[in-house]
């Protein structure tokens, strides 16, 4: 009980409230601006949080994460350009509804569904994270190794064009994590004589490069794209009767979103797509989907916001990122000197409650933002790209530099950005690479310790039923894309 009070007391301090509000506003802003995303904003803000106390800093980033998912729906509805990937499905019915003269209603439905999905998933989070952490306390290195391998295998089913390319990206991320002095033997690996690499590659410049610089270069190719903007005067909350008729859809999508969020590597985008498809499948008016039906808006919106809360469960309880954004929050935790995982929750339980409080606050703030600020946030899309992206570049340079006041980090950031652009062009996602980078140390340490425990006999790992369970899941997960490909081919012929 003390931990609950201590954690939630975070919300009683004015400075912390301001920080979380700042996180929410930045989140909605970057979510609303096409091209900018919450992972990018988290990557850019992380180096500056080093001056803050760890718990408020992480709470601010968590609030930003929630808000970024919501913010994307504003531009998805008003200009048919989803500000963030999780809002892609929202645009399918949100934009047609706005176009037929009901932008306020579309925004209202999206907001209420987001709040419901977000709050419901947080309730799951507050119970599931400590419970999962207690179970994970029993894990030894072999179980952790199997869990990390399973998490990496989930990259195969992450959103993106190709499972194979996601796995290669993840592998490269794990490889990047080997840069530096080998912990067991003290031997330098892949440092190429650069002393700054002795302690390993700094996460922050890589994250900024991949998410901000890579996107900047992609945006340079879309400067002439013209979008049709629909003006929204104010948000219109759904009526009680309408809400009652959508109750089932919201609850179902919230459950789906929370579950998908809890799965390692599966984030809000997958949740939104599944939420949309399930809303359509259960709908009595499924033929109207795509023309501006309310279920087509609340389905994906409840799911993608619920996934944000769900994704925090494995992130905090196991130290395994639930999505690309939570991988960045894990990187921030590591930067603040925490080792994410069950010990973090068991030794500092107030941490979980503080994150819960911040995300709860963020979800409630959506209502206020939707009611008061929807008009303003729809206007931010008018910011000219030829000023917006130079500003992003400036923040990227400062963010990378301030991580350790070293120009090497700026060079790393730029290199990561250039590589990120080409990776993106050829279908290799940045998020799997980041997941690999974050999980890399855990994989190597648990693998080495397991090999020592079992005297280099890899097959002895299978003695543990938990290891067997995770390896079985890994096998199923890796083989699924191939089976579905063959099944579809059979169906087509």
């Amino acid at each position: 009980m003390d931990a609950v009070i201590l954690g939630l007391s975070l919300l009683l301090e004015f400075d912390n409230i301001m920080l979380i509000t700042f996180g929410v506003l930045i989140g909605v802003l970057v979510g609303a601006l096409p091209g900018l995303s919450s992972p990018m904003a988290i990557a850019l803000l992380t180096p500056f949080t080093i001056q803050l106390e760890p718990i408020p800093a992480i709470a601010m980033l968590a609030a930003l994460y929630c808000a970024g998912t919501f913010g994307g729906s504003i531009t998805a509805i008003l200009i048919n350009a989803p500000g963030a990937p999780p809002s892609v499905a929202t645009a399918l019915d949100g934009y047609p509804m706005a176009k037929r003269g009901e932008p306020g209603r579309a925004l209202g439905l999206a907001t209420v569904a987001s709040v419901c999905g977000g709050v419901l998933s947080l309730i799951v989070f507050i119970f599931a994270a400590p419970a999962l952490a207690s179970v994970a306390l029993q894990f030894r290195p072999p179980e952790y190794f199997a869990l990390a391998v399973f998490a990496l295998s989930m990259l195969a089913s992450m959103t993106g064009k190709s499972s194979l390319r996601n796995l290669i990206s993840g592998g490269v991320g794990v490889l990047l994590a080997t840069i530096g002095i080998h912990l067991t033997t003290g031997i330098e690996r892949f440092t190429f004589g650069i002393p700054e690499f002795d302690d390993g590659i700094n996460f922050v410049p890589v994250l900024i490069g991949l998410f901000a610089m890579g996107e900047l270069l992609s945006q340079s190719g879309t400067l002439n794209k013209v979008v049709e903007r629909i003006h929204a005067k104010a948000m219109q909350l759904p009526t009680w009767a309408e809400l009652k008729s959508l109750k089932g859809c919201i609850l179902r999508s919230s459950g789906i979103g929370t579950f998908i969020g809890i799965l390692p590597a599966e984030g809000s985008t997958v949740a939104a797509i599944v939420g949309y498809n399930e809303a359509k499948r259960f709908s009595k008016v499924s033929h109207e989907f795509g023309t501006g039906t309310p279920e087509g808006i609340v389905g994906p919106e409840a799911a993608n916001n619920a996934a944000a809360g769900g994704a925090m469960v494995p992130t905090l309880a196991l130290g395994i990122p639930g999505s690309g954004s939570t991988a960045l929050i894990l990187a921030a935790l590591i930067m603040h000197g925490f080792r994410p995982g069950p010990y973090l929750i068991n030794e500092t339980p107030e941490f979980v409650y503080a994150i819960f409080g911040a995300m709860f606050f963020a979800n409630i703030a959506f209502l206020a933002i939707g009611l008061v600020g929807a008009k303003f946030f729809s206007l931010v899309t008018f910011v000219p790209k030829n000023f917006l992206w130079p500003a992003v570049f400036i923040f990227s340079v400062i963010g990378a530099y301030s991580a350790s006041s070293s120009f090497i980090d700026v060079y790393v950031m730029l290199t990561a950005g250039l590589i990120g652009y080409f990776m993106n062009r050829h279908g290799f996602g940045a998020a799997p690479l980041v997941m690999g980078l974050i999980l890399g140390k855990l994989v190597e340490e648990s693998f080495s310790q397991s090999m020592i425990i079992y005297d280099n006999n890899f097959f002895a790992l299978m003695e543990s039923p938990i290891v067997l369970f995770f390896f079985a899941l890994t096998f199923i997960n890796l083989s699924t894309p191939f089976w579905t490909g063959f099944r579809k081919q059979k169906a087509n012929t």
Partner: protein
Amino acid sequence: MTESIQTPTPSSGNARAIGLVHPVDLVVTLIILSGVSYLFYETTTFAEVAPMFAQNIQPSMYPQILLIIIGALAVFLPFEHILLTRKGKDIDKERRDSIPRLTLFTMAFLIAIVAAAETLGILLTMIAISLIMPRLWGQKKIVPILMFATVFPVLVVLLFSKVLSVYFDPGLFGVAL
């Protein structure tokens, strides 16, 4: 489960036109395999330690396993388009057009400005970015550019140096606030 909202799919005829081996992915595979080979060679130069001290896990073992896995996965890349086409995914959508000229210019600018950053110092670098990049990206009006280049970097430096205590390198010219 994602088919219902996917972008238009390529025709199977398109896949047949490409053939068994996707030429662009073949180049990508060769680049990855070259990198993997070079890094594998690099791992052979890692110092070895006594087996007892290393507890039978030499520092090169784990990266070598990873490189083999990455290389093995990359070998399938040139053939992957067959499976992706069957699934209705268009892997060439983003790369069908050549890289826009502005993107190439932007890359060159980013490299040049980052290379000069240590000499210029952070403040001058920010001013240079604010002056050149909007112009490069098609902003024709000089007044907004000048306003942006004077106000934005100064605000950023004041915010981060005074509020967040970030140290800004003044560079060789010693320009700082």
